[in-house]
């Protein structure tokens, strides 16, 4: 497949929505288990314990996620508890990505030491330093994966552990109310204001 075809396929995913995956087939029972676990934990009023990450590792990955989708005037990946969705994904439907995270965490530490002598932890760098480091590794497979998992965790249904309090959806202006009445947006408000037709 040439790169052109690849980009076309990428486009198709979003545009035609032609595409999806058998990937999930074998993993669906595990995803369901994820939902149950997360739901149960938050229901009982406490954050769930990490299943894959050590607390130190979780801090590092969360710091990355918080640069990928930072808080500004609105909350970001950290506030949406994306780290929990990543942790649960890695012990369930993204189980086979564990080695990439292990290697990635080691690389992250190496890069931190290499770029900022005397510093050991990415999470303890200044925000500017973190951005500088992530820019240096933004083409890596590890960064791509954390980016994907951060976006997925931020915008998927809250029962997967992220998008806490629907923060991700609120940020982009999406809601899943289940039913709406016209008018729907700015440009149809005139035509739809009378009879909704």
């Amino acid at each position, binding site marked *: *497949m040439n790169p*052109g*075809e690849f*980009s*076309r*396929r990428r*486009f*198709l*995913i*979003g*545009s*035609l*929505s*032609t*595409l*999806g*995956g*058998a*990937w*999930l*087939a*074998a993993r*669906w029972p595990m*995803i369901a288990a994820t939902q149950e676990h997360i739901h149960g934990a938050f229901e009982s009023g406490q954050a769930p314990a990490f299943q894959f990450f050590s607390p130190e590792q979780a801090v590092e990955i969360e710091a990355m996620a918080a*640069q*990928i*989708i*930072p808080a*500004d005037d*609105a909350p*970001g990946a950290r506030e949406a508890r994306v780290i929990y969705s990543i942790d649960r994904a890695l012990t369930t439907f993204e189980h086979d990505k564990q080695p990439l995270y292990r290697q990635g965490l080691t690389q992250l530490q190496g890069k931190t030491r290499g770029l900022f002598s005397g510093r050991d932890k990415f999470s303890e760098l200044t925000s500017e330093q973190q*951005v500088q480091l*992530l820019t240096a590794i*933004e083409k890596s497979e590890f960064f791509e994966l954390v*980016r*994907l998992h951060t976006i997925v965790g*931020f*915008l*998927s*249904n809250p029962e*997967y552990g992220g998008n806490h309090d629907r923060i*991700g*959806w609120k940020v*982009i*202006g*999406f809601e*899943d*109310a*289940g*039913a*709406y*009445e*016209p008018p*729907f*947006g*700015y*440009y*149809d408000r005139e035509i*739809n204001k009378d009879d*909704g037709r």
Partner: protein
Amino acid sequence: MKHFTTGTQVDFVVVGAGAAGGVVAKELSTAGFQVVVLEQGPYLRESDFRHDELRFRDIYDKPYLGQEILTNNHELQPNTFRRTDMDIARPLPVVGYGRCVGGGTVHFTANYWRFHEIDFIERSRWGPIEDTGFADWPITYADLEPYYTKAEWDLGVSGLASASPFDPPRSKPYPLPPLPVKSSGVLFERAARKLGWHAYPAALAILSQPYQGRSACMHCGFCEWFGCEFAAKSSTLASVIPVAEKTGRCEIRPNSYVRRISTDKHGRADGVIYFDGERREQFQKAKAVVVCANGAETPRLLLISKSNLFPQGLANSSGLVGKYLMFEATAGALGTFEHPLNEYKSVQVTRVIHDFYDSDPQRGFYGGGGLDARFDYYPIGYALYAMPPDAPRWGADFKRALKENFNRTLNVFAHTTALALESNSISLDPDLKDAWGLPAMRVTYKSHPDDLQNMAFFRDRALELLEAAGAIKKWGFPVEDATASVHLMGTCRMGNDPKSSVVDQYHRAHDVPNLFIVDGSSFVTSGRNQPTCTIQALAYRASDHIARMARSGGIRSSL
């Protein structure tokens, strides 16, 4: 629901409970025949459908095609792909179809375009196109018109008759008024007016008002790629299949994967062999077989069903089973606007333009199509794949772009012609097997150069529309050779000559008198790549003729 034993020789066994199979099941069972419908996928109900993008739309990067819940699973049923027969075919998911009771009508966008008169006679009007299978249909629009009307009224379609000056003649208006226009539709209509084009309310197989005991659309926004939990989308699952079951003469048998159409020593179909949910082989006896397994699985099943009497595959004396595959051809562009559109609400499409439906020799190539205004992204897919091309991929500016654009983006989407080429095909892969040990599908596909020129033409029209609509930013989809398709057409083409077609104009296989093939595979041309309405009209028409033939003893059974 009636249950038949496999040993009972029913009147008809129907393979596939999708757009066509659901209609055939209802028509034949209400006409008094016993019908068993074998569906390889599960029998899901409205209560199984969820608003869950991660679960129902796999946005992960492999494999790309088909969700596992409502559509085919490429790990269980892989296919291989090559551009031409000079290339080596490699595993690559390129074919997507509905795999549950209701088939693709469960998750489709529900655009419901009739073909125009020109679609059936375009070869005569345009002239030959070298090295293609460009041909007229053996039927005309007038032959099919009563069945288009029947489909719209029986299934439940919303629209506004004659709102488009290009609409073909119709004997009856739509049963339901159009769905309310969205902001994308308003902008699209405004732009069209400026350009002298004609936007009209989309015809959708979605109920704008309660109909036949089903609920009206609640505008929840989860149509494309999702099942409708209100049964407001007129899938065959929600509309005609319950009617078939209520006759007491129709059994829908899910999780039943047909592996062979069986024939007797006289070359007549006598039933089908299938794997049940436990992968045990079963044999369902029947007087006649109707294959509605879609434009990719139908030819595969016929090719797998080869025997001493049918060494090239069943119904394949022409050698054309699997040939003339036509893929979904599309083009389009995205644009962003100043104010919120909130396109995530309600049905995906509310306005359509058919000004460029017909081919025009002045363009210098064959091709036509239609454009619609839509937004078919959900949050994750939008963030990953549909952001403005100049938006950063992460960080504060990425988040800002996401925030600003999710509700301000629309997509002008063109559905365009695909020429039938004999070299584009579904065949059996010589090596790869599916999870049941059956030969995997091998897909060979390369778009005709005119298809690509046409796509570029439509991309430019989409950009022109966005410009006229006042888009702040706009960008086109790349125009590239088709690599994946969920519209599968042409692989058992209809015709009068058994040497150049697989089924006759009543969908009867030329080679097997009690075998009928009714789905996208019957198509001679692609129309403008919105096939479901025509698949269903053909299914109503075929059922009418099949029932008539059966009543008059015209279908000779094996007994």
